[in-house]
């Protein structure tokens, strides 16, 4: 067993874990943060995307222990109480959500883009979500949702 201490959505969390435990399973099974989904476990579908050290990563490609003494943000950390993040609002308004399984990962990838490049172009948007698969929407409304959030230009910075 290895000791892991990590900040998740602003809260300090600690656990003794198996070294082989994937970050996504730590988040889902240990912390019960089930908004992060699993679709492939080969880093291809992006359903498990979270922010690690303020950058989007696929949490099925990271061992939980690698995140020791660092910071993670999951989809649950994006909305505050009842208030949705503008990106989440935009996904609703643009009808970018069907079955919803890819949505949290998609939102987190987009959130990573917002943090890194507030003036991102359409191509940037496509690049940012090119590692996130969606089988329902054909991506059209997802791209729309992200562009409209960028166009608004107001979104809270990452939760410290």
């Amino acid at each position, binding site marked *: 067993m290895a000791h892991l201490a990590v900040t998740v959505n602003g809260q300090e969390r600690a656990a003794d874990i198996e070294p082989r435990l994937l970050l996504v399973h730590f988040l889902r099974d240990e912390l019960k943060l089930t908004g992060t989904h699993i679709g492939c476990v080969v880093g291809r579908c992006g359903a498990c995307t979270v922010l690690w050290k303020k950058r989007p990563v696929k949490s099925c490609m990271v061992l939980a222990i690698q995140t020791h003494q660092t910071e993670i943000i999951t989809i649950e950390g994006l909305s505050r109480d009842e208030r949705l993040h503008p990106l989440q609002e935009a996904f609703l308004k643009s009808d*970018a*959500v*069907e*079955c*919803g*399984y890819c949505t949290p990962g998609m939102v987190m990838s987009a959130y990573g883009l917002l943090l890194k490049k507030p003036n991102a172009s359409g191509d940037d948007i496509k690049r940012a979500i090119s590692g996130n698969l969606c*089988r329902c929407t*054909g991506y059209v*409304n997802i791209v729309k949702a992200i562009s409209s959030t960028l166009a608004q230009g107001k979104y809270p910075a990452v939760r410290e």
Partner: protein
Amino acid sequence: MAGDNKRTVAFERKGAARLVRGAACYADDLQLPDTAYASFVRSSAARAKISRLDLTSARRSPGVLAVVAFADIMGDIRPIRGPEGPLANCLIYPLPQSEVHYVGQPLAVAVAESRYQAQDAADAVDIEYDLRPAVLDPEAALEAEAPLVFAELASNVVQEVHISSEGVDKAFSEADHVISERLRTQRIAACPLEPRACAAVFDAASGRYTVWTSTVTIHAVRQQIAEVLGVKENRVRVIAPDVGGSFGGKVHPYPEEILVAYLAKRLHRPVKWVETRIEHLTNVRHGRDQIHYVQAAVRSDGRIMALKSKIIADFGATTRFINSLPAAALYSTGAYDIQCHQVDAFGVLTNKTPQGPVRGIGKADAAYVIERFMDIVARQLNLDPAEIRMKNFVREDAFPYRTATGSMLDSGRYPTCLRKALDLAGYEELRKEQAELRKKGVLRGIGMCLVIEPTSAARRGQGGGYGACRVRMEPSGTVSAFPAYGHQGQGHQTAIARIIADRLSLLSDDVEVFAGDTAESPYGSSAISSRSAVTLMPAVDVAATLLRDKILRIAAHVLEIAPGDLRLETGLVRAVGAPERELGLRQITRIAYIDTYRLPPGLEPGLEVTGYFTAPNIIWEPDERGRRNEFVAVPYEAAVAVVDVDPATGRFSTVRYVAVHDCGTTLVPEIVETQHYGSIAQGLGEALFEELRYDQDGQPLNSTFMDYLLPTVNDIPLIETGHMVTPSPFTPLGAKGGGETGTLGPPAALGNAIEDALAPLRVKIRERPYTSDRLWKAIHQEAS
């Protein structure tokens, strides 16, 4: 919905807010205390006898609670029989007795305290196979001397469709041209983003099972669990929690659902299983994989006088009825008026993953074949592909139109739709542009298609053909709705709430939808076959209307006014012409539930009704020629694709994709639009790179998302859409179902466009998907 004029805010799909928050509950998100985890041991052989299955070391693995194979469960389970036909001779168990039929087939299952421990134990199972040569080529499997996939059957052919109209041979003998072709659709998988998953608990005190499973077909899963475990079905409750897409993959029961329920009882603990993507790609029922031999008797002006189709479908090692075969056979003439038609279709077993529905099932194969074939004929006769289609379409005044197979095309304006797509694309200009580009050496191609995608299947022995929904007005005047089945992202709650709100003068927000639970849903089919808009929503309409009528009868009795002179308004019933005479909805519900002595004599208490809708145009019994009608409505779509092919690399790029869709009346236009894009995207994946391949031993060559590719955002070209509305005369709301049509277009339109681009090189494209290596080889073989 036209009547919903209370909607003043921007469109928002009902129930979507919890999805964007990550607060949904998919099957793997369930937190049942004390859950144990299951992991399946799967065959690594395509066709073999299991010569040794040693569970000893697996059972010693840390955290293990049980490791079971056939011998350990045989006393507790009952086999089921295959469907009507040859497969009825097969006894089917959830784990095999001694032989395996495809790579990935579950052989044994390990249960442990954690996910990882369960997988460790499954990996520790020791198996030896006595390998037999795998049966992989469906055409070879048809031969009399072919090895049998299932030893208990007389042949590998397990399903057949034969329909023939009179005068086919005569038409061929008199034809100006006889044109033949062989076309094939490749094997694909549904690939919803959420893999399958299930969890079960058994309550020993009541003898009841509760199974949460990521399924489309709750009632069928319950039925099969009960049958195999030998319990009454009312002791099994199946709940589909949030389901992360299906596209056909989560339809019908799977062995894992039965075994997880079984293990929950055996271990007195909740048991959960979550499919990995490798398991998905080797176990979720595959689709397509049909070979079509098509032959046409053609007049020199391009009119097709007769058509012969021979279809060979690779069913894999199926033990179920496969709807793709009749669907492909019945609609093999597509949107065309070809009354002289003969179709012979064979469903053949092979040692591959069993087949099942995948979005567009069967109809996708038929549409691809006839739409590619129209171009092949046009090229041979030097006709424009638009012209040959216009010449052969079912005329707009001929609907409802019965095809030579008896299938009913309910309504449609095919020539108008294609014309609209061509105009939207600027077809004349595109041809001019193409000629200019060709002079510069650019290989530009223009392809088109008009695909039909019949919906809401109903078939003897398979069910379908009706919808059911229960609605209850609560004492407060709000409404709870219980449709027969749940949804997988299609947005049914929004449509259901709108219909009910409209009929009962409520706000959509006053309607709550409870779906996907056999304990509360009326018995019924499922969302497969784009059935919801076609048969479920009319049932919702019937239920809401029955409820309104009852409300008005109660009010009529109290107000002493005839029901016909009353109107239901928001929160009250008012007399027409005497607006001061009114009765509040809460007073009415009070009479219905509490002060029942005030009900009109003979009227039963309560405000809870179940509405049914039965499709009026299903013809269940085939006639002497095999003709019948298995589908209710026929949405369709015309598409025009423009591509550039790079002969040096074999890559093509889609410059434009124009699609004009007609799915009848749209119940929620925003939802139809979103779903339409996704539907086209799935077809693009099929055209671009989705293909499940096997080697000569029956080993799958691609079983992860690293090698089975789904389209990403970068693979979607600019999609330009147009819509037409031709209501179906057979559904009261006029809706035809819009979930699948878009998927059918890209393989045909892009195939035609690529071949058009390569026409100067005289390169033919007869295989799909249109990968760069396939195109490169075709270009360079032709050149050499």
